């Protein structure tokens, strides 16, 4: 349902065609640094990765600046695995093969502080098709339809990540099954060029990819509330997302089942 409410916001901005944007100087405040943890375990073989970093000043670069020296452990069913630092701030291990239904516990000890989180990997649902309906293509804003089957028996939460020619889009969608329980769903997903550069328009032959993540409720809540931290100060009062990590770190830890489909713009 997030989609619907965002639509009206989109409309509002499209009215403001006479609006004017200008880069301004800004005095950034001193920032008390916080730890940021992003942990993922998927049903793909050997996919277990945890990234540890700190918040940065707004004037800093946007590239990931990892934090070395953390002790990162994942526990499942009493079995503890320590992750090795494979790049600066990136900790991974290929010996864990995530299994749906299993609960994973993450422990990160960094600079004397301990953070913990846990996440249960949901069963993957049938991701049946990805297609573009007639009339849904537009250079600036194209809709693709993802067809999948929601299982009735359990509560399901979905995260759709979008890629244009394998380039990750910042905009993503999340969905819970409150209104689609047990249904075969044709979910419309929007790909759009939100930059002012026509070169980023969607063209014929472009490959549009959707990764469908089945996530647990804590991760759904995190991603749902992450919209509030995207820097668009205008609409909602900006807030930090609801993390499932205890100990005061930003970020999330997710055990998820992932499936991917592609469609080429006709």
């Amino acid at each position, binding site marked *: 349902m997030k989609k619907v409410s965002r639509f009206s916001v989109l*409309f509002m901005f499209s009215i403001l065609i006479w609006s004017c944007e200008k880069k301004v100087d800004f005095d950034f405040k001193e920032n008390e640094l916080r730890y940021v943890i992003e942990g993922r375990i998927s049903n793909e073989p050997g996919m277990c990765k945890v990234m540890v970093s700190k918040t940065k000043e707004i004037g800093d670069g946007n590239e990931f600046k990892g934090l070395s020296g953390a002790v990162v452990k994942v526990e499942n069913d009493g079995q503890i695995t320590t992750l090795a630092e494979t790049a600066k701030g990136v900790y991974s291990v290929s010996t864990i093969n995530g299994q749906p239904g299993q609960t994973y516990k993450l422990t990160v000890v960094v600079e004397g502080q301990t953070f913990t989180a846990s996440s249960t990997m949901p069963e993957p649902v049938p991701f049946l098709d990805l297609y573009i309906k007639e009339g849904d293509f537009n250079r600036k804003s194209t809709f693709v339809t993802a067809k999948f089957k929601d299982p009735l028996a359990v509560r399901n939460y979905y995260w759709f990540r979008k890629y244009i020619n394998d380039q990750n889009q910042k905009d993503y969608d999340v969905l819970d099954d409150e209104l689609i329980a047990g249904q075969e769903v044709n979910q419309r997903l929007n790909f759009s060029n939100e930059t002012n550069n026509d070169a980023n328009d969607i063209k014929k032959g472009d490959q549009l990819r959707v990764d469908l993540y089945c996530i647990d409720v804590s991760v759904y809540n995190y991603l749902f509330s992450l919209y509030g931290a995207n820097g668009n100060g205008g609409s909602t009062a900006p807030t930090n997302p609801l993390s499932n990590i205890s100990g005061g770190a930003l970020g999330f830890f997710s055990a998820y089942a992932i499936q991917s489909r592609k469609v080429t713009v006709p």
Partner: protein
Amino acid sequence: MDKPEPKWFFYLILCICLGLQLKAQAQGPLEKKISINLNNENLKTALDKITALSGVKFTYNEQVAKSNVKTTINANNKKLKEILTELFADKPYSFTVLDKEIFIRFDPSKVKKSEAGSAADRDSGHGNFTLSGFIKSQKTGETLIAATMKVAGSSQSTWSNEYGFYSLTLPSGSYYVEVKAVGFKKYHAQIDLVNNTNLSINMEEDVQELETVNITSSSQRREIENTQMGTDRLSMNDTKDVPVVFGERDLIKTIQLLPGVKTGGEGDGGFYVRGGSMDQNMILLDEAPVYNTSHLFGFFSTFNTDAVKNVTLYKGDIPAQYGGGLSSVLDVKLNDGNNQKFGVSGGIGLIAGRLNVEGPIQKGKSSFLISARRTYIDMFLRLSDDPDVKNSSVYFFDVNAKMNYILGEKDRIFISGYLGKDLLDVQGLNGIRWGNRTGTFRWNHIWNRKLFSNTSFIYSNYDYIIKSGGRESSLSVFSQIRDFSLKEDLQWYLNERNSLSFGFSSTYHQIKPGEVRADGDNGYIPRKLQSRYALENAVYASNIWKVSDVLTVNYGLRVSAFSIFGKGDYSRVDQGKVIETLSYKSGSLVKTYFNFEPRISAATQLDETSSVKLSYTRNAQNLHLISNSASTMPTDRWIASTVSIKPEISNQFSLGYYKSLMENELDFTVEAYYKNLKNQIDYKNGADVFTTQPIESMLLFGVGRAYGLEFSLKKKIGRLSGWLSYTLSKSERKIDGINNNLWYNSRQDKTHDLSLVTTYQLSPKWKLSANWVFSTGNAVTFPVGKYNIIDQNYFYYVNRNADRMPNYHRLDVGALWLLKQSKKFSSELSFSVYNVYGRQNAYQILFKEQENDPTKTEVIRRSVFGFIPSVSYNFKF
């Protein structure tokens, strides 16, 4: 970023105010000195002789002229005041100044003391009688609201009520009454009150005065004496001269220029009164509540000014007859329609066209009015080559219709209705439409000269539907709030010292929070969120008690009972967790909230031109608008109080000083207020607006406080008129679960807020206007850091609303050119320029990756409404 603390503003205003205080008083007629010798002369002869010597004229009735009272005086270079005092010392007459003349009246209170009074002078008898009737416009038959009636030589005064009715009880005698109303010539008459008198007053329109513009219809006299505080009354001429964006006259945009009223941001169609939130304003259109006042996401307001008669904004002590709004009541009254002659008026502006038709159904007895407005931007969209644009629609319209009928001397009925709709639609697939519908049936009845009643049946409906989807499938959400009410208001002009208002109201609310409708193969299951039903009852009584000539006290009590009914499930929530959920059957009582809302205010007149007032008011509110956006969105959700959502309560204290300067040319007002707010509501972080979970679990509760100082200086008369208002204020909230449970600024908190509104009559054909506004930026939350997550950049926030948008300021100018004016036809061209010096005021501050170098973050200021010139043409025949 600009520094938001220009203290010099405050000092500047203080200086202006003090400077004006120093203005000297002009010499009155009583101060003239003459020498005179009278020996046993008739009263009339005596007065004529004084006039010949002093040049001061007298006004009196036949009773005085024919009086056989003899007068004797011997005065040498004495003030007229002393001479007249001596002259009437033992006579049944008194004198009063009326502008430059002196009014002589028979004064029965002196009869007993007087030995000299003849039988003829005494035959008017004793006892009190009532003067009552309606005050109307002679030309259109429209009743006039808040026209003031003043009795010369006494402290007695009154004003017409919302239906033009007045009633005044006085001891028998001869009086000189003056009636004033904005845009009308002063009416005066001599009344010999020897029995109860019905006097219908027809005021003559003052064309000259209309053009020199009056800011309020309430004369200074009234502001000084009345206990009512924190009230602003606007006539439609006020909005006419204020230059606005796209040349569309806008009521709410004019209200935003008043002291103590703030906007949420550029183009915001809502307003915030004394630190309260937007939904804490009860907005009434002919008594029907209007739940969404914005068109086009707030860039325009729902009120078509062509149809509006009068607007009153109660910011401080809200009269007991109104309930349901914590910070203010905006009472909008529509015109009744011309009952004298048929007329058409209208206009064409840059974005909208307007047409207003009115006329008598039976001349002098009944009339109708239909007023409509529609935008026509969408007509231009059709011309576009882009099929997406071509097949899209964007428009809004308003229709006001009203009719009234006089059933006899004692009864009058009114039927009025409003319909407004906004539509935004892309290719018929995605879109949103919203609108209000209201209807009011009213019956005025005069029980006797002292007792007036009005009975209203009111209907109000607000709904919206959002649609999204493709050709084969779509998804929509429908939401609605609907009210039916019965309201009875009585005004009892008990005696010289007391006038009572009492009555009751009963409203049935039905709220549909959301209905999901799905078509096609998208797989969505249609779902309805549970409707909420409530009955809101209230009784009230209040009395205006004239304790003495200089002290008036107004006290009252409103008792409200908000009863929630099934069918539905109600959850008890603690700290966002549902503790228990109970199901209620249809019609069964869930809970009743009783609220006692006392209020008291007092006004003391310090002298002829100044007064001090203070007041305390308590208000309760049971319908709450839950908004997670900073601007007015049609999808903001109305919810009623439930088991876990308690009624919002406010207590407000205010103190004011009112001064009339330069022979009533200038009104100066200072008001200070403090209020506390209980049971304030906000969304939880990450709340889902459309969830089927109990809404209570998405909310957080807390308290608020607001205080401030408002200055206003109004110039009502003369070629140059307008007002200057300045507000220094603070508004804060403390909500459990937000900002570490510490106090934080509410978004609408703007420390300084200044508006200067001016109009200048250049020539009979040209009128110029300009307004300048300055305010501290809204309190907002800027990020203090950033981090990478899911391969993207996100921002980190610490304190809620601890930052400021840049200072806002803007100059608008306008010119009105009267093309033609005759009895049959008049037309004018109105030019305006919004934001003359093109200030790029920040609408939003965005933080995002640089487009050409995504590794860097840039800060973007988005502005809307730069320099916008516009022109509109208005006609009337």
